[in-house]
């Protein structure tokens, strides 16, 4: 029985991994090799220059730097905002609390493409067009992270908070010195998910960033599609390099990716 399960699981994973394998396989191929059919499943030639050449012609390093800055700044600000607000919505009573939370959650249902027009106007008015700030600021409103934070804090027993307050700690101090130290798993999940969302974000930076030097990796990659046309070797090499930082983050923190959902109480 276990053997059948293992066989099924391995077969499924192989199918799911095939596109990734094929990205790597094509990334070392030359143009001739790809146009002679059938394309061999294992590379015959290794055109490793596919990974290097595009760096000379395109500001790939700038794109990488922009992506890193946007992701890191967004993570710090968004996670801070969502920790504070998530705790307040879960554990503190104040006027209008439930209505506000409902309004915030309802923004999950608004596709970004829908409100991009006024957001774009706003970014122009704030003089943030073609700047990293213009990409970062409007994305600080991240309802799913706030939802996860609230779910997590709901599971903290009230008795614990009351005990801290009996010791004379105010609400803000209780949050800082009792609640936050308990929130390690939540913080890890919020950091990882926010990083992933911002790293992979496409349409908003596509609109805001107009100069090719200020592109992020996904926007730069879409630019390369037009540049390379059917020259798939370097295109897929660059695609792989653009997802590599995310894959490394995932490999290091995958325990939190996979178990974090359970810990924040989504199910």
């Amino acid at each position: 029985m276990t053997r059948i399960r293992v066989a099924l699981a391995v077969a499924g994973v192989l199918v799911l991994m095939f596109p990734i394998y094929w990205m790597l396989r094509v990334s070392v191929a030359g143009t001739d090799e790809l146009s002679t059919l059938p394309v061999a499943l294992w590379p015959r030639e290794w055109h490793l220059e596919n990974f290097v050449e595009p760096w000379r012609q395109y500001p790939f390093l700038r794109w990488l730097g922009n992506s890193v800055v946007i992701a890191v700044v967004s993570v710090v600000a968004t996670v801070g905002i969502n920790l504070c607000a998530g705790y307040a919505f879960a554990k503190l009573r104040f006027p209008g609390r439930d209505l506000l939370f409902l309004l915030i959650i309802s923004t999950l249902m608004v596709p970004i493409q829908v409100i991009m027009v006024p957001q774009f106007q706003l970014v122009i008015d704030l003089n943030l067009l073609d700047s990293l700030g213009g990409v970062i600021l409007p994305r600080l409103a991240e309802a799913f992270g706030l939802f996860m934070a609230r779910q997590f804090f709901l599971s903290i027993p009230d008795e614990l908070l009351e005990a801290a307050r009996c010791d004379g700690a105010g609400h803000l101090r209780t949050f800082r010195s009792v609640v936050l130290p308990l929130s390690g798993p939540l913080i890890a999940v919020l950091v990882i998910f926010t990083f992933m969302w911002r790293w992979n974000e496409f349409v908003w930076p596509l609109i805001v960033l107009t100069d090719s030097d200020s592109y992020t990796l996904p926007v730069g990659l879409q630019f390369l599609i037009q540049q390379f046309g059917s020259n798939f070797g370097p295109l897929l090499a660059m695609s792989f390099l653009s997802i590599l930082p995310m894959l490394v983050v995932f490999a290091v923190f995958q325990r939190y990716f996979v178990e974090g959902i359970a810990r924040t109480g989504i199910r």
Partner: protein
Amino acid sequence: MAGRRAEAWAGVVLTSPALLVFTVFMFVPIALTFWYSLHRYSGFGRMRWLGLENYRTIADDPTFWTALRNTAVFTAVSVPLSIALGLGAALLLNRWMPARGLLRALVYVPVVISGVAAGVIFLRLFDPVTGIGNQLLTQAGLPEINWQGNGAAAMVSVIAVTTWQGIGFGMVVYLAGLQGIPREIYEAAAVDGAAGWRRFRRITWPLLAPTTFFLVVYSIITSFQVFDVVYVLTRGGPGTSTTFLVQYAYDQGFNQRRQGYAAAIGMILYVIVLALTIVQWRLRQRRDASL
């Protein structure tokens, strides 16, 4: 009471950064979107008041109805498919097996890849002339498929990519749900002789209902917003056969510069997703009440 007031004060302090960003970057833009939808507006210069004219135009716009139908078909196929496959992966990988952690991680890998990179990967896979997809079909003795020239095939390719990227999330959420089912229930079921399919049907599936509910709601919301993959893989084509509502709104707003019209499409999209979510919420409450 001083205690209540201090608590309310702390609540206001802690939520104020969130309220600020949500007000400026969400609530106001949503309200403005509605306001724009009542105007003709090119994105700069003056707006011209139209009242409900944009909405009337939409009702007679065949492309809008095509986009709506495409979105509905896409959602109706891709949501159940990725949830079912996610559940399958979770059931397979819930109990111990060699390299279980690695296998789980690999299933999740497509989730962390950007939609643009995923689009590029499948652009190559589904290339009608030199792609490995058609090569494998030919080797299996099947006819080739024109993934970019045939509307249905293009839709299948978009569904394939989004499902590929969706299975991992479903699996992880279902694994969390499965961990929440107490062991004793299965032990009691074993005493009663329930096993295999019967055990799944009578115990696991009903106890996973909240998980399934969360996933259905979440997946429908995200499937109405799918954009990046389509942008790279099919550009909404051939013709309009993979143009979804978000693509159409984006195209009208940013390419045709009909931002008022795009805003009206956006409002309709928002109302549809909101209505679907509320209906599911109600159905769930009714079902919970009848238990």
